[in-house]
């Protein structure tokens, strides 16, 4: 038995080979390092040589004098000589291609012209004939970058080249070199278009000048999926909404990208007809598309889509989708889905306490005027609040009939010291806020799930709110015996949330609320609400039964505006009363409310009974209601409540309105009053308006003055833009920031720097000190500089100077004085900041360095008086104007 012999010689041979290769690589490492370095050096040198020539060409003016023209021609000859060398041609081509990234406008056009004048484009043409794909691609890329429009015909031949990189470059070229190139490309391309390529082409197209996009719908029928996809993206980008039907068709496309893009278009163009097809395709889509569809439904959908969404919610197991469904439902009908997590569970046992709680509440009401009992009352009321909350939560669990009975019991035995806030959206939540009489009372919260119960409550509430005239009559009948310590606000919002904060005096009072959470019943509830809102007679009857022993010391506010949020200042008789809110979102209700408001506005005597109705049908609106408003600067977005109606009134009503305005208004009415003064013909009304205007102006002035003082203080002290950055930086960054402050800071930074003088860190402390001193010094110079230019010889020193500083300062003053006195003989060294920015970039690019001024008094060459004047004018635009 034997084993095959191993020839160790083979291994030694391999070893030798590896040693040889190793040595070769070792040598090559240094060879390539040196080659690359020397090439870079050579290129830099050659660039330095060629760059001044290029700048001469680029900035040569046709109207140059003879000498310049002669130089120009010599340069042309010189450069042509240089270009006979291939390396020079290559370097020059590189220089121009690099420069192209940094120039624009006229300079860029000249650069393109120069490229062709020097015949460098011919090299690029040569590259197109090469067999290597990378060289052909480079050629196409060069011609495209330098916008050799004649190359278009040569390049588009490659548009269906089998070599990917060449194909992609030619596609970009086609789109860049000719505005119609995109049409040609989309018509003829056979290959797939990568996302990256689409991204690049869109980037090219959007930067094309005078580009008239074709109607991209023409390519939605292409057999190339990527053309369709790109077409859709272009349609979306150029907002071409003339292809709705095709887009709707494309949501059924098998390709997910196309589907996604079609849905994006639907969302963007608000194609309502697409909702039904979207619902149809929904089930077969993958998660991302489903979310996109839901997002689109959220934007375009209406109540009729809710059943579909409910179905999706039930059928889908994916959390992301179910979560999205809920947000979609809420987007269509806000607050349909309410938070359910973390809520307390209420047992029936809590109900036992119900009557006791109510009695306690009654007792508290009677005792509320007694200061001695306040503390005790507070505790009791807190308990009561909890009990009431529990009670109402319990009500949620009851059957509607039971609930009704319960409510009746409560009403019969309880003095109702509240008027709930109703928030009614089209088909969703209705929230009723109760109004306790006393401050700091944590009020009970109730959720009502039952349709009938909500209807009952809504019946009672809506009636009160929607018929002010009848309502006021009702109130007349009850106010003798009833105290009404509440004030309902009605807020109507068809689509979005309206937030109201009001009564600063009552900040600590929490409002009780009744929320309707039954999803199935929402539609019916809102229908009921709407019906009720439209049937004031019934409502008033309801109120009659409800408010037997209620104190009704309320003053409702009504604000109506279809488009924007606004604020009404209003004086209330009882400032400490928390005003309940009612949100009404139903469209019909809103119309009713608006009508009512208009009616009331025409009847000033009823204005005291107006509820606050804030309606916003389209935009989110935040209304801050204050009982005693003493405004500062006017809020431009606020609209005067009286604007819409005032000029339509007769003179008597106008006077009445002005009286009301005087009572209730504030400085916010100033523009409106000015308008009255301008437009009104009746002298008496005009005078009355002026009187009010003066009153308001005085108030406004004093407030403005105060706020201005504060603002100025902020501007001077707290507004250093560096402060915020500084606070969030580490030590090293802080030091860098201090350098920045020195570079670009101004007076504003001084006070900030002062605060840093006490910093814990010594380095920061020292640096701040230095920077502060330097900054102060510089500011003095600048002030002096301005003073000199303005002809002001008296320069006030804002900050004390050190002896050394003083010398510098005196020198500067002397220099400036010389400048102003001997303008004709002034010599300056050219500074980068005086030359156009583009030229600066160019100089940097070409690595040309201007001589640095060694000192401020260096004088290299003389300027004419005209130059000096132009410089002076550019320093001081005001003077130039003069």
């Amino acid at each position: 038995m034997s084993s095959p012999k191993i020839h160790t010689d083979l291994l030694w041979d391999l070893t030798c080979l590896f040693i040889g290769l190793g040595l070769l690589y070792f040598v090559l490492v240094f060879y390539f390092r040196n080659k690359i370095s020397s090439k870079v050096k050579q290129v830099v040198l050659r660039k330095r040589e060629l760059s001044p020539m290029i700048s001469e060409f680029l900035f040569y003016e046709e109207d140059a004098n003879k000498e310049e023209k002669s130089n120009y021609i010599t340069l042309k000859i010189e450069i042509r000589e240089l270009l006979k060398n291939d390396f020079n041609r290559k370097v020059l081509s590189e220089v121009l291609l690099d420069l192209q990234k940094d120039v624009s406008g006229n300079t860029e056009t000249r650069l393109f012209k120069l490229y062709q004048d020097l015949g460098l484009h011919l090299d690029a043409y040569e590259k197109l004939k090469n067999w290597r794909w990378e060289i052909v691609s480079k050629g196409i890329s060069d011609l495209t970058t330098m916008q050799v429009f004649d190359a278009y015909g040569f390049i588009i031949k490659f548009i269906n080249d089998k070599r990917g990189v060449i194909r992609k470059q030619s596609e970009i070229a086609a789109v860049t070199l000719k505005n119609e190139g995109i049409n040609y490309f989309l018509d003829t391309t056979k290959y797939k278009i990568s996302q990256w390529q689409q991204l690049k082409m869109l980037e090219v197209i959007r930067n094309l000048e005078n580009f008239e996009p074709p109607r991209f719908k023409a390519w939605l029928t292409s057999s190339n999926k990527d053309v369709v996809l790109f077409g859709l993206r272009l349609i979306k980008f150029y907002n071409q909404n003339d292809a709705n039907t095709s887009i709707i068709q494309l949501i059924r496309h098998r390709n997910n990208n196309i589907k996604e893009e079609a849905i994006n278009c639907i969302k963007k163009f608000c194609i309502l007809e697409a909702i039904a097809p979207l619902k149809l395709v929904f089930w077969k889509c993958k998660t991302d598309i489903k979310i996109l569809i839901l997002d689109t439904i959220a934007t375009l959908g209406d109540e009729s889509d809710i059943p579909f969404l409910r179905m999706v919610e039930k059928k889908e197991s994916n959390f992301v989708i179910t979560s999205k469904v809920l947000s979609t439902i809420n987007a269509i009908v806000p607050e349909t889905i309410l938070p359910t997590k973390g809520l307390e569970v209420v047992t029936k046992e809590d109900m036992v306490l119900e009557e006791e709680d109510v009695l306690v509440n009654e007792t508290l009401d009677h005792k509320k005027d007694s200061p001695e009992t306040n503390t005790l009352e507070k505790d009791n009321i807190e308990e009561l609040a909890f009990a009431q909350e529990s009670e109402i939560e319990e009500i949620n669990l009851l059957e509607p009939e039971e609930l009704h009975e319960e409510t009746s019991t409560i009403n019969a035995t309880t003095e109702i010291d509240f008027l709930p806030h109703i928030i009614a959206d089209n088909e969703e939540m209705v929230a009723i806020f109760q109004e306790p009489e006393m401050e700091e009372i944590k009020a009970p919260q109730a959720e009502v799930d039952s349709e009938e119960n909500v209807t009952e409550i809504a019946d009672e509430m809506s009636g009160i709110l929607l018929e002010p005239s009848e309502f006021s009559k009702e109130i007349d009948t009850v106010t003798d015996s009833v105290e009404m310590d509440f004030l309902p606000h009605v807020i109507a919002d068809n689509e979005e949330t309206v937030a109201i904060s009001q009564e600063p005096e009552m900040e600590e009072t929490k409002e009780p609320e009744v929320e309707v959470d039954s999803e199935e019943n929402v539609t019916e509830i809102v229908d009921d609400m709407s019906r009720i809102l439209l049937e004031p007679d019934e409502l008033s009857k309801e109120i009659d039964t409800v408010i037997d022993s209620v104190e009704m010391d309320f003053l409702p506010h009504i604000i109506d505006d279809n488009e924007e949020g606004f604020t009404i200042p209003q004086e209330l008789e009882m400032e400490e009363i928390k005003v309940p809110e009612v949100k009404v979102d139903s469209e019909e209700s809103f119309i009713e409310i608006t009508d009512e408001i208009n009616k009331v506005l025409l009847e000033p005597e009823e204005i005291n009974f107006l509820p606050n109705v804030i309606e916003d049908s389209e935009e989110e609106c935040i209304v801050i209601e204050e009982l005693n408003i003493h405004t500062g600067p006017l809020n431009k977005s606020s609209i005067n409540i009286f604007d819409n109606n005032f000029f339509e009134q007769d003179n008597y009503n106008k006077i009445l309105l002005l009286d009301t305005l005087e009572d209730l208004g504030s400085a916010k009415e100033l523009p409106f009053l000015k308008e009255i003064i301008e437009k009104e013909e009746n002298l008496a009304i005009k005078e009355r308006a002026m009187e009010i205007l003066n009153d308001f102006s005085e108030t406004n002035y004093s407030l403005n003055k105060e706020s201005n003082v504060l603002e100025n203080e902020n501007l001077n002290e707290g507004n250093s833009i560096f402060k915020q950055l500084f606070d969030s930086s580490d030590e090293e960054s802080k030091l860098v920031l201090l350098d920045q402050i020195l570079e670009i800071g101004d007076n504003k930074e001084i006070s900030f720097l002062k605060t840093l003088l006490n910093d814990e860190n010594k380095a920061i402390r020292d640096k701040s000190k230095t920077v502060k001193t330097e900054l102060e010094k510089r500011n003095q110079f600048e002030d002096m500089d301005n003073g000199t230019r303005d002809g002001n010889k008296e320069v006030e020193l804002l900050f004390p100077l050190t002896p050394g500083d003083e010398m510098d300062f005196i020198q500067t003053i002397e220099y400036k004085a010389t400048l102003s006195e001997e303008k004709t003989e002034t010599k300056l060294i050219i500074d980068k900041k005086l030359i156009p920015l583009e030229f600066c970039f160019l100089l940097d690019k070409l690595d040309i360095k201007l001589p640095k001024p060694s000192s401020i008094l260096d004088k290299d060459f003389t300027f004419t008086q005209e130059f000096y004047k132009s410089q002076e004018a550019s320093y001081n635009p005001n003077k130039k104007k003069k």
Partner: protein
Amino acid sequence: MDNGIFEVILEYINIVFLLFTIVLFVLFTIMVYLSTRNSIHYRNKNSFGDLSKIMASPLAPSITIIAPAYNEEATIVENIRSLLSLQYVNYEVMVVNDGSKDDTLKKMIDSYDLEKIEQEIDPNWKSKPIRGIYKSKQLSFSKLTVIDKENGGKSDALNTGVQLSDNKYVGCIDVDCLLMPDALLHVVKSFYQRTQKRVIAVGGVIRVANSCKISGGMLEEIRLPTNWLARFQLLEYTRSFILGRMAWGRIDSLLIISGAFGFFDREIVMAVGGYDTNTVGEDMEIVFKMRKYMHDENLPYTVEYIPDPLCWTEVPEDLKILVNQRDRWARGNLETLQKHKDMFFNPKYGKLGLISYPYWFFYEWLAPLLEFVGFFSIIVFIYLGIINWDFFIAITTTIYMFSVMISFYAILWDVYSYNQYTKTKDLLTLVFCAIIEPLVFHPIVVFSAVRGNYKKLFRIKSGWGSQVRKGFAKV
């Protein structure tokens, strides 16, 4: 008779070693060839075109960069600043504080003016509980999201980030990594440039940042590390990334994307259930899993690899930390191979099952063990006086010279492609490292791998270990 059989057995052992070595040579030679071709192709393809123009395109996809942070208070603020300054519009930086015991969270809150926000979380998602989600009050930091969660390890933190992200692509990086400003542009290009296949993941080169001059989160000057361990690792990384992964990328069989710089198609990550929290080699495991998923679903896909130096990181300079790190890698390797053993020589998975997996099995997992066994065998053979000295010296010299040659080639290719270490002294140092590495550094790596495997096989509990970061700001 007995002696004769024993000698024959010994001869066959030699033959096995020789075959193993020759296969290794062949494989490495093929890899060198493939990586060279791939590098040249990549360079030619990307030699023109300006990526920055695409930066703000309306079609640019959204990306979330997820950076898990555990006890990173020393460097976290600086690192986040670096991440926030990338050249891309449509991206989000999501830092997941994985229950840090130090002031990592506080530092972030203070420095970036964070406030807690409400966000609904899938109750079925298996991750450690989230304590809070924070966003900055300042517009300038609006790209930043901080997730504070209970400690669950890097995988768990990454999973949380993936779950909470709603962008198309997610990037999983180490928070202490320094990304080049145009890194995301390269990533997007890689994701978007294919037409035939779906790019499910993009990986990139990790470069060694030890001793580099870094200021304000930006790399200012590339320097060779001063620490010898770091130098060896630099050489190892160069060889691995420029030759190894480039070659695997060329044949679309890349099985690992570094945890320090990996970007994924979020949809696929979610489809495979995210990172495996039961392994310490999560970066390798997820690529296995995603590839397997695409194969099973019969979907055309690819994994892209970017050779440009886009991510810079600190490597351990302490021997103990290095050993722990390599120990962990070995365990991760074994766990992943074990978990996906059904792919081993399985033609269903194509190149993946027939080339990549076996390579990883034999040359990444088994080779260090064989080396270790070989080392002791030689000692025993010498002791017993049965060693074939001729063969032993010849094969050892051949392997050694091959290894040095491959390292030289890696240095050469690095100079040719990127020319980052231009000083003669630096290059000579690297060459010297290449010469002594098989004798000095490699045994450490082998020892760590054996230790890792030992721990895994004998179920000795071991976690991630820790690394003390110096922090770029202090470099």
